[in-house]
């Protein structure tokens, strides 16, 4: 982990999973922001500080994880942000993204996050 506190954006529609991920990341010293769907996440990405990584669920209402990923890739300011996909259906993940399969193994998730922060 660098000198400044790395930030992680969690995009997950299940409030319980979102809360546990937030607690786990904060325990490790990360600053955490949360969004309950892709649209809220996209607004957050465009109006707040650039996070070190995005943890992205795929199946969400309003805007899915795949739709958010496409929007990020289309925006030069967001395209370079590492995205870690968290899904029970890895075959749906955008090509090239690291995937942590649900149910989430927290240690595997933290190890993956550490690679980008």
């Amino acid at each position: 982990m660098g000198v400044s506190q790395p930030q992680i954006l969690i995009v997950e529609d299940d409030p319980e999973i979102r809360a546990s991920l937030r607690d786990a990341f904060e325990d490790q010293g990360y600053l955490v922001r949360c969004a309950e769907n892709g649209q809220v996440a996209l607004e957050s990405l465009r109006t707040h500080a650039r996070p070190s990584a995005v943890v992205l669920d795929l199946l969400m209402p309003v805007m899915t994880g795949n739709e958010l990923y496409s929007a990020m890739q289309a925006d030069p300011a967001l395209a370079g942000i590492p995205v870690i996909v968290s899904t029970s259906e890895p075959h749906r993940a955008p090509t090239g993204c690291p995937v942590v399969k649900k149910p989430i193994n927290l240690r595997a998730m933290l190890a993956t996050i550490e690679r980008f922060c």
Partner: protein
Amino acid sequence: MSAGCLSLLMQFTTPVCVLRGPAHMVELASPACCELWGCRMEDAVGRSLMELRPQAALSPYRELLDGVLRTGERVTDHAVPIELGPEGQRRKVYFNFVYSPLRNEAGAVDGVLVNGFEVTDEVRASEALAQTVQYNEMFAGILAHDLRSPLGAISTAAQLVQMRRPDDERIVPSVSRILSSSARMARMIDQLLDFTRIRLGGGLRLQRNRVDLVEMLRGVISETESASPGWRARVETMGDGWGRWDPDRMAQALSNLAGNAAQHGAKEAPAMVRLDGSDPERVTLTFENRGVIPTDLLPNLFDPFHAIQRVRSNANGLGLGLFIAREIVSAHGGEVDVASAEETGTRFTVVLPRASAPA
């Protein structure tokens, strides 16, 4: 036609007719048969069926009738749909028709006796049952899918507790039980989802990649040994294990077969797992153990829920593991088979075409 014969025919409440010769001339027809044709008996007798029912000339009936005349063999046509009633009040009914050869005095087949039995109620009941089964399977699939999220939340929260209190002896064993039960439930949910995907026609999606089955097999056996205290397997490989398969699905199939061996195989002797890659077209895997499967269970061993059909002696799964393993192997164009006997133990054999494996 004799008066007695005609009187007998008039009492038939089902469609019956006698057709003669290659033109299928109507010799006799019961009132119910004439109702199906939409004509009077006197208009039907003496005319060709093809003239009476021009659409029959183009339909499979013509082929069936010609076939009975040619072969002299009885044929049954099941659940034939027919529209009955006047225009505007048509209703669909279903009949089974039996086409029996009629022979002349010289023994040659020169006619066909057609008997019809209405099976509309049976067909409707069968359709309703199929619909109910489909709804049940859809419900199981939706329920399984929706159970994943709360189960994931339970598992993630339990891991968080474990990480925060790693040395608390009052908490760690309980959290471990939550985690192992969650993992077991997650496996059941995955199996149920796979089952509904297969049953509802979506099938298993394959994403083929270049895969080394030797490396995959060693990994799967090692994982199964870790998860099954007391169970050990020896792995022997020969030849080349490379091919184009879906790595996740193939690992799942091998894991299900290894897990089955660990669960049901005898613990006192190690299981034997062999991979033979000496054939350039296919790879053959065998899983052998000293356990014996009762003969009466063998024919249905790959059926879904076979463990539930038996005594629910364990709650480790839904009895879908072997069914899914076979579906995965079949989706890759392969075959899986089982043999079991007291003297030799049990052997599962998987034959997988390599499906060409360019470098």
